[in-house]
């Protein structure tokens, strides 16, 4: 495991965490205050999960933890000890895009793309809960994620298209 962030020799209070990320078991020693988002990015090098706000407002850090969508900036890595995590890097299988990723791409559901992994993970969870959502249900389902570029029109389109694709 390529560790991006070093630990200080002198610090005393490290803790060990282990979790399964995208099916791969990982464990590391970290500072207890490490947030899950920083663990994924700085320790595991999974930079597809983005860090946007720290206050749970933007949703750029959304990942799936034990089957539920969570904002990984509002969870300490130690709270995820033993958990199964899915990040944006875990969606495409064998070089095949996940239908949600494909739909975001084709429908221009992104501009700068920084919020996109969070939206896709939230959509992934949403479509698992409700494979056949109405536009209103999609809007409600992603209202906890923020995009500053698109005005949301194409994000809604992309998720509705993905729902269709996933039925096929």
């Amino acid at each position, binding site marked *: 495991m390529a560790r*991006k*962030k*070093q*630990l*200080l020799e*002198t*610090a005393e209070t490290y803790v060990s965490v282990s979790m399964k990320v995208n099916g791969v078991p990982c464990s590391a020693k970290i*500072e207890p*205050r490490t947030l899950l988002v920083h663990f994924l*990015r*700085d320790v595991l*090098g999974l*930079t*597809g*999960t*983005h*860090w*946007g*706000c*720290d*206050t*749970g*407002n*933007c949703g*750029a850090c959304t990942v799936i933890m034990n089957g539920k969508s969570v904002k990984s900036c509002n969870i300490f890595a130690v709270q995820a000890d033993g958990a199964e995590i899915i990040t*944006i*890097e875990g*969606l*495409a299988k064998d070089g095949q*895009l996940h239908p949600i*990723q*494909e739909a*975001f*791409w*084709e429908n*221009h559901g*992104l*501009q*700068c*793309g*920084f*919020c*996109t*992994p969070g939206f*896709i993970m939230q959509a992934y969870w949403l479509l698992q809960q409700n494979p056949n959502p109405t536009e209103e249900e999609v*809007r409600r389902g*992603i*209202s*906890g*994620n*923020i*995009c*500053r*570029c*698109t*005005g*949301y*029109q*194409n994000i*809604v389109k992309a998720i509705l298209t993905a729902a269709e694709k996933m039925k096929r």
Partner: protein
Amino acid sequence: MQQFRWVGRPIPRLDALDKAVGRTKYPSDYYMDNMLWGKVLRSKYPHAKILSIDVSKALKHPGVVAVFTHKDIPNNRFGLFHKDRPVLCDDKVRYIGDPVALVAAETPEAAEDAANLIDVRYEPLPVVDDVFKAVEGDGAKVHERGNVARQTRITFGDVEEAFDNAEVIVENTYRTGAQIHAYLETEAGLSYIDEKGRITIVSCGQSPYRDKKEICETLALPEEKVRVIIPPVGGAFGGKDDISVQIFLALITLKTGRPAKMFLSREESTISSTKRHMAYITMKTAADKNGKLLANQTEIILDTGAYEGLGPAVLDVAIENCNGPYKIPNIDIKAKLVYTNNYFASAFRGFGAPQVMFAIESQVDAIAEKLGLDPIEIRLRNVVRRGDYGVFRNKIEGSVGIADALEKARMHELWLRRDDIRKTRHRPWIRQGVGVAAAVKGYTIGALPDKGVVGIELTTDGRFIIKLSSTEIGQGVVAAIAQIAADMLSCHLKNIEIKAADTSQTPDTSVTSASRQLYLAGNALRKASEEMIKKLITAFSIATGEPAYNASVSDGYVVSTSTGRRLSYSEAARILEEKGIGREAFGEYEVPRTTPIPGTLEIPHLFYMYAAAIAHVEVNILTGVVKVKKLVLLPDAGRVINPQTFTGQVEGAAAQGIGYAVLEDAKIEQGILRTINLSTYLIPSIKDAPAMEVIPIETTEDTGPLGAKGVGEIGIIPVAPAVANAIKHATGVRVLEVPITPERLYRRLKEAGQNTPR
């Protein structure tokens, strides 16, 4: 209109694929072995004298490698117009985001802990938080030169005489708030020493060459020792036009020889980053009985905060656009840019135009109402058309689509149903209304010199690499350039590769701002393409002995029009290589410009984008909450290169416009920003973004690449006035201040006796 193979088609952006799978590396995604983390200590006070800075405790903190102060900066003042900004503060701090010291440590936690151990002793000074007091001149000064950073007056005709002869005069004072960019990726980057010994900064930004210049000047480094790379950035909107982390990163690597990373927290970003200028605009506008605008007298004060940044140019754009897209024969504009301790204001999408458009478009609506004229009709009677002379007696030579946009708006079903919508009441406390606004803004940087270079390399396997310094900030410029290149070079889109924004590998394509990167880079690309095609044809002549005039390019081949013989691009590449002709071509484009009118820096522009917008709002008169139900945008931005990108740009800008109009309230109290994160500074979520309809008004700009203009900024500009005019239509109350928060609107409704449900 000419049809193209790639241009004009809604092709999914190539770069968007990587973004959808989480593979794109943004400035915050770069890491290196043995890397340090940088953390800035920022001012606690909006205005204070620095008495001493003691870094000794911080230096002893475990994991800390270095702590820097102003003593480490050879040239500690920089700025694009006026060098008034310190890299690290020395004599004073001038706003609460001002940087005082910089820590480099082994971990981000150690850096942050050590920053808190730096002992800075301040002597607080009176806070200059009010532009009107600031200009009086007898109080505290933000800078030695005084609080008026720039002032000017522009007059044409005689407003007083026009006022005497007017049928109707409307005079109001408007206030617009400080908007925060709130790009989803905060400022970030990584620095290291590259294989050629250059200090290399991979960071957010909008202009690699300009950032490099500021790094070299402040740190006294020779040009060849510094390299700036700007990867795809997680949103910018003007907010990454000024320097943020770049000089800090360069400093750490310069002094320690080690790689360094910075990634600002949301709070630090919100406090320290630039903002949209707060504006105070008084406007006195006159018209004759037919609604013909006769005169407009305007006083604009922009609060630039602690430093000028791009403020002088923002002031120019406010001056240029305060008369809207109208022919007004008599104008008088007094404008001031004022220093305060409120924040640091600089570029933000629209660049001075959203502020003044809110004012003039409210004025025009008020005049229409007084005269009993239809709001669209009065605008059509006054709008500028191609070939007309503008308010500065400047001939409008570029394409002008505002009359078309307004005509289409007039026939839109939302506008036609306007009175029915107003009469419909689902609830006794809900009022509905529909409003319209027009907008204009110049693109290109006006009368300032502006040129850029684009390079094309033909690879040995017959593909093209386009090299340019445009930065991909989400707007889709890279994909749009690829589409244009594929058409110009007559090849498949997949054979175009873009290499962007690396000062060691790509030529200077000038700054990515002012909605003109597509225009500028596209035109430079056209020139480079012509050069490249000449080379391809030369190779063909060498290979076949046929004269050049017989040959043209077609879908990856040079083809003889008389014999039908053809040569593939890869064979051409081999011949060019063998004969030493070279496989590279460059094109330079200098944007045509005007002579600035006296009293200004860069206006008027030669080229303008236009738009009209219709807003449908629902107002709750008991709470003052405004819900924008629908927005229709009719932008004239020339030929559409990629319909998806075009529409996306306009919708995204319009969503920011809704935020500006009713939601985004940066609360600054005595120089202290109270809304420091996304739970207190609210930007539109999907609940605030209504259904939108974008109707492109496709004019063809003859000077643009394949007829294109710029589109980045125009979508935000008409939204706030359209919403305000819709609120007036719904409730009878005109609000003179944005954002139109529930508190503000409720107060106005109450004053007007309009808050009784019935």
